[in-house]
């Protein structure tokens, strides 16, 4: 069961790539260390041989160590290139996998949670959180593992020649690789949190300011708004400088510690040299080796920060995904006739909130054309949500097609009922993609016919790319009314037996509104049901029956007659 698997555990192929990336990263770090150490030895040995006279110089075999240097240099280049490609490949794969899994969890939750508790801002954060969590491997895992392996190897090598020097190196590496990142992290956590809060606030302010630009200008409030922004920016700058001071400090300290440790290693090595335990050629090697070992430790303070960010991101994601999956969702299919029957329904969003519906009765027979009217906030849009189990109800019963709504199979239901929600989403990409998302099996003729009914075909035809016109971010911007009509076309394309349209003509002028309603009524088969949620009186004459929500109940009301103009 994919939804039972943990969010962050990598799949086999990605895990293999991650492991390969780690191996390559260690190989590159070790090659770097070996290269510097061997070069130091090579020079010193050549110098020793040269000093010892002509015979020794001739006896000195330079070919082998020189080949070693060339080998290590090549290995370093290749391993580093491989490391970068493989680790980035694995990271992007991991992010994709985390996204797929978390989406799978979220999509099983009641949408009430999504719409009521998650603003666009929070969705945006969720996207960056999945990225952060996936990047933990690249930004924190790889540097720490590489530093550990390379540190152990270098301490081992140096210790093998001069044990005391190995101890000095180990102390230096642990200080820079463990103590320093911990201390820097501890010092900067508060500033990091402050930046996040202030940035959110600034984001909100900017949205308010830009949306109200004209009003602000006429209120003469530009100065006040600028001051608001300046205050936020100053707070962010202050915290950022604090962070930069800590990061820069850690970097400078690592550099100084590297040199000091090399000095300590040299001191130990010189004692060993005088004791006859070490050859002169090995001393420069150990010094250079110590310096090289620090190269893998230097990125660790930054890696600690990234690890923390990733942990926070993972915690937020887990909390978001941990909401209980939808309780309803049975396996029964509704049977004909597809009547909706609500008896004494009581519904509220939370136990401490007011009732939206109470003792509410409503029956809609298959084939009826019904308008649902009422003041804004009265619960008109709740009806579709109740049917699909998006909201739970606390009292009464709801039956659809003779089946209890709670036992309905959501997939079977969505095949029969087409809902155009008030906030129907249009997906990025082409018009064709949006239509195909609604109904993957539809052919081009069906698409055009749906667009025709929604009164959008003429507009699409006059765009150069037709159905392949990109909309949104990378393409054409649709007006509000055009967007509504495309959403309507998407629902119509599915040819549902039941149609629930929430404010289908919002944002349309009167003539287009009439044209849409006329075409819609003409296109509906006689046994198809239409429920139109609206506050526009102009579309009422197109319908047979009107139901008003008032005092938490449904009441039949008369439709102002006079045929549609």
């Amino acid at each position, binding site marked *: 069961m994919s939804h039972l698997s943990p969010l962050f555990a990598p799949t086999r192929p990605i895990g293999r790539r991650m492991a390969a990336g780690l191996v390559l990263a260690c190989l590159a770090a070790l090659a770097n260390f070996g290269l510097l150490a061997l070069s130091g030895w090579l020079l010193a040995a050549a110098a020793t*041989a040269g000093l010892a006279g002509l015979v020794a110089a001739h006896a000195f075999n330079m070919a082998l160590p020189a080949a070693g240097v060339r080998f290590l240099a090549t290995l370093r280049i290749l391993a580093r290139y491989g490391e*970068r490609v493989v680790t980035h490949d694995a990271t992007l794969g991991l992010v994709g996998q985390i996204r797929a899994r978390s989406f799978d969890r979220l999509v099983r939750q009641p949408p009430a949670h999504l719409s009521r508790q998650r603003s666009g801002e929070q969705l945006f954060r969720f996207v960056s959180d999945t990225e952060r969590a996936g990047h933990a491997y690249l930004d924190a895992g790889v540097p720490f593992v590489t530093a550990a392996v390379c540190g152990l190897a270098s301490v081992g090598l140096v210790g093998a020649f001069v044990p005391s020097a190995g101890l000095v190196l180990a102390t230096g590496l642990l200080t820079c690789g463990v103590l320093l990142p911990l201390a820097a992290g501890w010092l900067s956590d508060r500033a990091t949190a402050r930046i996040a809060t202030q940035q959110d606030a600034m984001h909100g302010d900017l949205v308010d300011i830009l949306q109200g630009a004209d009003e602000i200008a006429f209120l003469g409030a530009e100065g006040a708004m600028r001051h608001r922004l300046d205050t936020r920016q100053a707070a962010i700058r202050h915290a950022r400088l604090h962070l930069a001071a800590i990061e820069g400090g850690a970097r400078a300290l690592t550099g100084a510690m590297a040199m000091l440790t090399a000095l300590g290693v040299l001191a130990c090595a010189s004692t060993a040299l005088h004791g006859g335990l070490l050859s002169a050629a090995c001393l420069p090697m150990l010094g250079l080796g110590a310096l090289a070992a620090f190269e893998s430790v230097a990125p660790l303070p930054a890696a600690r920060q990234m690890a923390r960010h990733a942990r926070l991101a993972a915690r937020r994601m887990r909390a978001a995904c941990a909401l209980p999956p939808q309780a309803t969702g049975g396996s029964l299919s509704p049977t004909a006739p597809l009547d909706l029957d609500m008896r004494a329904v009581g519904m509220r969003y939370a136990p401490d909130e007011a009732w939206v519906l109470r003792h509410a009765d409503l029956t809609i027979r298959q084939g009826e054309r019904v308008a649902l009217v009422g003041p804004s906030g009265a619960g008109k849009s709740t009806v579709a949500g109740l049917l699909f189990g998006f909201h739970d109800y606390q009292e009464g019963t709801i039956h659809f097609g003779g089946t209890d709504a709670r036992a309905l199979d959501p997939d079977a239901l969505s095949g029969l009922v087409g809902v155009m929600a008030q906030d129907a989403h249009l997906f990025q990409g082409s018009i064709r993609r949006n239509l195909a998302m609604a109904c993957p099996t539809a052919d081009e003729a069906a698409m055009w016919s749906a667009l025709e009914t929604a009164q959008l075909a003429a507009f699409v035809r006059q765009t150069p790319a037709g159905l392949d016109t990109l909309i949104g971010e990378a393409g054409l911007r649709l007006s509000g009314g055009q967007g509504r009509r495309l959403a309507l076309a998407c629902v119509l394309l599915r040819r549902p037996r039941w149609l629930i349209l929430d404010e289908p003509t919002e944002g349309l002028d009167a003539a287009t509104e009439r044209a849409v309603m006329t075409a819609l009524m003409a296109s509906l088969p006689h046994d198809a049901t239409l429920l139109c949620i609206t506050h526009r009186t102009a579309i009422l004459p197109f319908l047979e029956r009107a139901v008003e929500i008032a005092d938490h109940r449904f009441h039949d009301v008369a439709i102002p007659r006079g045929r549609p103009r």
Partner: protein
Amino acid sequence: MRTADRGLTGLASRAGLWLGVAVVLNGAAAAMLVLQLVVLARIVDNLAFHAHTFGQETGRAGWLAALLAGRAVLGWLADMAAATAGMKVTTALRADVLAHLLRVGSVGMAGAGTGETVTTLTEGIDALEPYVAHYLPRAAMMVVMPLMILGCVAGLDGWSFAILACTGPLIPLFMALVGYRAQAIMDRQWTQLLLLGNGFLDFLQGMTTLRLFGHAHHAASTVGRMADDYRRTTLSVMRVAFLTSAALEFFASLSIALVAVVFGARLLSGHADFRTAFLVLLLAPEYFMPLRAFSASYHARQNATVAMRRIAALLALPQAPMAATIAPAPPSGPLAGIACTNLSAAYGTDAAPVLAHASCQFPRDALTVVVGESGAGKTTLLRLLLGLLAPSAGTIVALDEAGQPLAGPWRDRIGWVPQRPCLPSGTIADILRLGAPDADLAQLRAAAAQADALAFIEALPQGFDTPIGERGARLSGGQARRLALTRALIRDPAILILDEPTSDLDPDSERRVADAIRRAVPGRIVIVTTHRRTMIGQADHLLAVADGTIRPLSASERAAA
């Protein structure tokens, strides 16, 4: 592309002083590094080949420690200066762009979505920070450091100098060639990367719609597939960048190896001494280090170029005509009316005109209601009156008591209530005082009473001090409109303009808002657009916008409206 480049150059000059400080400090730190290596080479040489004990080297070790401390402090200060430069640039630029956008107004910004603009203002401008704080100082160090080391090596060893001097300049050349290729690939795949990169957000936003389509279960696998496509596309771009670094390392290793081999041979034959060889070997990687650091921050420049293009697009938006006239002006005489004569307006030069030779009057002490089908030009008329849009022909003048055109600006005397009022987070009193920072509570109460907002404000838990917005109380649509009306009335405007003040309201709220507007009429020119009957019923004069013209409706036509 070129404007973006010019913008980036402008950025560098904005942060000039701090960047200069950073570069000087970095240069000093680099000099200390070279000195450090000189001392270290000497210590190693003495220990290995001159039979010194470490005790004999404590003096030099002390020097080394002092140089270390100096370099650490200088390096840290340089980092701080660079970070300050980055933040100074971004904060100042953000404030400038926002100020510009406020002068552009909603009509000018209509092309760019709010979300997109805010992203440009936040993340876009943030993307410039690494460019200023890292890329620019590193670019300077790429010149300073190699020259310093080259000078040093020239004094030590001719062969090594020749090798480094020859290989050094090859690297930036080669990198530039590969960099162009990476840029070309980036440009080609930009749209695809953008779509795939935003795909996840898109699906999250459309989750409910997907469920209603019954596709929720397949959607998760689609998300996975899109991520996979994104991975492949991104990697194809990244590979080129990684290849650049590999080439850089190849050249660096090659020249270091050359230096080492040449030295090895001469050391064997006794033509060179170890100290020089060791020092040059220590210096050689530092010669290439700034290049490596620079190439690591090369993408900072690419990100900044992309961001700068978007920022430049915002800055290129023309200011609204009202921007010049809205500044507080010396009070002109009393206004008796507004006259529009022969007005024509269109969005863009080749677009069909929304209004063509339309004329109308707005008298004082009267409520003028503008009706018309959506898209007929009601909003355009309001924009012309507000000065958000310049007419392509015709005039709008304010009239004095004698019916003569008023000299001087008059738009600063407009109170404007849009369909969705701007209510930033804050207390009720804060929001009301946005337009009149000095207003006292009595003034707030008087205006609130006039706008029928006093009762609901006082019913809130903390009255005027109740916070609203994200973390505060939620207002209903009708309450928000009445609050916005209160705010406009506090400034006691001579002209009051409201756009669809009662749309989306239930009948009770609608009546209260309409009554409040009615009460504001005496002494003012009040102009309202609407399509709601209750509001139309309150009108003294009714204007219909249709087919590009504006005409008053007679009493009988009013009854039919």
